[in-house]
């Protein structure tokens, strides 16, 4: 579904290439496909309409700069408008600060609070977490367990019904010792007046430097409304998008950004405590649209659209080396889940084992670092990597040898998958040859 959207968008873009005059019908089509892509990514309907209006207007009215083709011109406008919609990435300063977490039930505040603590801890700041969720059973246990794993102190009083008292006590206990204090709160939504009142009061006592809104990537059109009320209540200055490791596109976060006039600070992308990433607008746009890196497209707009990124033909010819995998992982970083990319490739109904998809972005990052520590000849021919080379690579990349072996295993899975595909191809070829041999319409 989404892959086809990405494709039709690509087709629409392709239609623009080679044109010298801007073609209204082609622009209309592009805008329509863009609308569909954004709507199915849960971007607010009104925002989408505004965006498409201004893209259409600018595309038809603005003169392309000298030397710039029509396609490059239109793409640039699309990109600029999307970036404008996205806001600037939220600032994260590495200095003493207090952060208040807010969000709907089940959006992932507690997990994110622990991930944030880990982030600041790794940056060398003394970090403490306060659990002000007095409602959900097990909330303190959850936060405490997560914090214990990374040896971050967690303040909380299970059984105490007054969140304000906990925050007050927690702050006075932590303020002198810790530089970064993160306050986790109970999930609430905009219609729960007394809970909104509670978070207003927490905000008043705590005087946090940041008030971050946690948004589930799957949140739909409701995102605007919720963000608006939270913003009215405590003045949101940053948005964290969670659960980006699913298939949701996170368009709801854009609505939240637009409502709060803030920016996206972090992206949560996995279940382990390390799975928190700084926000990267280009990657986010690519994912929204289900197509490759739009910025790169804009920059290289005169080249053909889809020849870049992954050299499918070389892969099918049987030359799948670690280099190809490296390129693939790089592309992956920008384009979202592997499954999606593979389904964009012209592989027919080829089945790829599910393990091959099961790779988190942190792992991907690690794989890339490991590959950076390999020599060119190792990248070209991974079969030469023996145990002493594994040792060397592991040391160079600062990982355990098991990680290097895991990478090689992953490479082999991918290679096998591609081989299977080739097998199919040559199978057909053989079939043709056989038909000839068996004296079909030979001469």
């Amino acid at each position, binding site marked *: 579904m989404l892959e086809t959207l990405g494709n039709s968008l690509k087709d629409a873009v392709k239609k623009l290439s080679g044109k010298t005059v801007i073609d209204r019908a082609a622009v209309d089509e592009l805008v329509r496909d863009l609308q569909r892509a954004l709507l199915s990514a849960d971007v607010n309907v009104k925002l989408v309409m505004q965006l498409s209006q201004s893209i259409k207007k600018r595309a038809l009215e603005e003169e392309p700069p000298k030397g710039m083709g029509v396609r490059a011109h239109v793409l640039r406008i699309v990109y600029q408008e999307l970036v404008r919609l996205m806001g600037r990435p939220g600032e994260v300063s590495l200095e003493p600060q207090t952060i208040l977490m807010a969000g709907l039930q089940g*959006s992932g505040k507690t997990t994110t609070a622990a991930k944030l603590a880990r982030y600041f801890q790794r940056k060398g700041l003394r970090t403490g977490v306060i659990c002000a969720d007095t409602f959900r059973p097990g909330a303190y246990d959850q936060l405490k367990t997560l914090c214990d794993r990374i040896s971050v102190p967690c303040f909380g009083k299970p059984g105490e019904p007054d969140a304000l008292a906990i925050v007050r006590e927690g702050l006075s206990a932590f303020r002198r010792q810790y530089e970064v204090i993160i306050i986790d709160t109970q999930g609430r939504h905009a219609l729960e007046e007394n809970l909104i009142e509670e978070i207003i009061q927490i905000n008043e006592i705590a005087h946090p430097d940041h008030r971050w809104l946690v948004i589930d990537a799957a949140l739909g059109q*409701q995102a605007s409304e919720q963000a608006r009320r939270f913003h009215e209540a405590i003045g949101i200055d940053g948005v964290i998008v969670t659960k980006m490791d*699913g298939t949701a596109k996170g368009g709801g976060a854009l609505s939240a950004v637009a409502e709060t006039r803030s920016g996206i600070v972090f992206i949560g992308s996995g279940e382990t405590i390390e799975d928190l990433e700084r926000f990267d607008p280009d990657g986010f746009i690519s994912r929204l649209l289900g197509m490759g890196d739009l910025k790169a497209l804009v920059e290289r707009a005169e080249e053909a659209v889809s020849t870049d990124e992954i050299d499918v033909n070389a892969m099918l010819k049987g030359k799948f080396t670690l280099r190809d995998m490296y390129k693939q992982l790089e592309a992956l970083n920008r384009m979202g889940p592997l499954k999606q990319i593979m389904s964009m490739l012209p592989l027919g109904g080829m089945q790829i084992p599910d393990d091959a998809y099961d790779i988190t972005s942190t792992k991907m990052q690690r794989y890339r670092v490991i590959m950076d520590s390999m020599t060119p000849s190792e990248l070209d021919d991974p079969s030469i990597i023996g145990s002493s080379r594994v040792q060397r690579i592991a040391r160079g990349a600062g990982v355990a040898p098991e990680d290097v072996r895991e990478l090689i295993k992953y490479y082999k899975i991918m290679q096998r998958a591609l081989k299977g595909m080739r097998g199919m191809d040559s199978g057909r070829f053989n079939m043709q040859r056989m038909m000839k041999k068996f004296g079909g319409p030979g001469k």
Partner: protein
Amino acid sequence: MFDSLKKKLQNIRTKFASNIEEAAGVGVEPPQPPGKAEAAAPLARPESPAVLEEREKPTLINRVKVFVREREILIQEKDIEEPLSELEMVLLENDVALPVTDEIISRMRAELVGRHRRIGDSVDDLVVSTLRSALCGVLGEGFDLLRYVEEHERPVKILFTGVNGTGKTTTVAKVGHYLQKNGFSVVIGAGDTFRAGAIEQIVTHADRLGIRVVRHQPGADPSAVLFDAVQYAKAHNIDVVLADTAGRFHNRANLMNQLEKIRRVMKPDLVVYVDEAVAGNDAVIRADEFNRTVGTDAVVLTKADMDPRGGAAISIAHTVGKPILFLGTGQGYDDIMPFEPRAVVDELLGR
């Protein structure tokens, strides 16, 4: 629930009605923009020669013919284009996923275009009945859990699945309470052994409700926990086993395999998929994926109290084609409501 959708749908209804009414005026005149003809009264003017053909294509000639002969008008596509695209926007704004919206719209179009309408008949009725059948078709039938438990061999085993943070654990507690209130005995299997604090959460809920929980250590095999829960129920003649599980994303193969194993081991009678009413387009993708891996017999929609638009209900019901069992409507144990599609559609259309 469904308030915003309801309001908008009612606006649309009047829009359709007036557009079709306008179209009635255009009947005998040469085609002109529908907006201009609103004043023309639908009078029969027996002057155009009727060509004898029995197709229902809303061409001008046919329209005139039908109009003249039968004092009916034929609805054509352009009469309803504007309200249809407005309806499309309304559905999208209310979180009905794009593919589902497309289908409802095309169903409406197919239903309405080419329909005859008697001049005297109310346009409203026509539009409402079309919308109603489109929505009812999507929402399907409800599901009566109490009757199901009543009619099946005890213990009835219910497995709850879904992605992270949709409210499975809370729902398990609420359903437990609901069944208990209605005279059934319940045991809960604490199958979320992964998320920190999950076991504490379900145990606290159960203690408050006086429900027994079968639990293992954090990190234990959920299949084993739930198997034990079933054994416990059998040994103690308990009516219903509610099996909580860890939230998992549908694109994590190993977690989905684990769920498949749970299903094999505990052999649930009902697999209940839990998702939130505020989810957008992704609701469709993940509902589909869960349905394909472990199957889904019924759906619970949580967080319906967050100024719900109800679109997710329509999207999910349409995707998996399974009934919606409950709506979760708040933080209390009583905040759960059996879902009755007919009542909802009646409510939406103001009947």
